[in-house]
């Protein structure tokens, strides 16, 4: 079925506008010209680590620890990324190493 073009366009524009709204709202509420309340700024400083932590969990949300392969590919690969990062301090090495490890594990070892 080919969806009709104007309907599709309206759907896309709606999603685009609401998405932009969620990104722009903080900047509309707290414009650069006026003084942002101190508690908002301190919230803004504490948020990044909390959000990155949430994103890590978000990426791994599909893992089921109780069914085969018990989340082992993810566990090993994440552990490898952490170790590589602590050892070499090189983001690219950590990411490529971890990703290669994960691909090998799910394609060959736990396939």
């Amino acid at each position, binding site marked *: 079925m080919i969806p009709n073009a104007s309907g599709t366009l309206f759907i896309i524009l709606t999603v685009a506008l609401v998405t932009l709204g969620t990104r722009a709202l903080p900047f509309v509420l707290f414009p650069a010209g006026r003084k942002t309340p101190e508690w908002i700024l301190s919230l803004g*400083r504490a948020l990044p680590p909390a959000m990155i932590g949430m994103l890590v969990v978000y990426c791994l*949300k599909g893992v089921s620890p109780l069914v085969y392969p018990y989340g082992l590919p993810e566990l090993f690969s994440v552990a490898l990324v952490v170790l590589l990062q602590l050892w070499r301090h090189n983001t690219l090495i950590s990411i490529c190493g971890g990703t290669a490890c994960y691909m090998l594990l799910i394609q060959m070892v736990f396939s």
Partner: protein
Amino acid sequence: MRKKKKALKAAFPHTIPVLLGYLFIGIAFGILLRDKGLGAGWAALMSTLIYAGSMQFVALNFFAGGWSLASIALMTLMVNLRHMFYGLSMLDAFKSMGRKKPYMVFSLTDETFSLLCSAQPPEGVDKDSFLFCMALLDHVYWIAGSVLGSLIGSLIPFDSTGIDFAMTALFVVIFVEQWKAMRNHLPALAGVGAALLCLGLFGPDRFILPTLVLIAGLLALFRKSMAQEADAS
């Protein structure tokens, strides 16, 4: 011009993990969109205007029909609410952006946010241009990936299953770096803890919203101890 080129050159290496992740996920999106009867032009339009990975996958369902624009708007709001928190974190960083600011706000995806949090420009490179270039490069990767997927998705010659782990790895690396940089680990622990708890309670499809509420609550409740030393990073 030279300033911009220098910033672009400095920004590119930082975006390579996003390049891998966006190309792969973008290609997957392009293929799925094509299955819905919408070709490369639509893929380019969506990835240019919406530019939100997980939301575009959710939006695939809208094309099957049966969705009012109001319910589409509500669904989009729920899925993308976390972006508000990114904006709150970037109020300060974007203050000096000038003409680049609207684009920085528009392009604030999970991945770009994480790069903005972590990457530092080398000596002699303008910070605002550096951040702008990372945001722009990510956007280009995303558009390129979805168009590629639409055009040649089914012809990929090797088994690329699992390459999207690059994104997970990127977040893990940034998590480790922030952990080392900050002596106060409470915000990081609150984020992981809240997400795990809500994942267990609400399941993988519905845990983000309660997680955001819980994180906001925890950060507000323990404001003093959370903010402590956060500035020392």
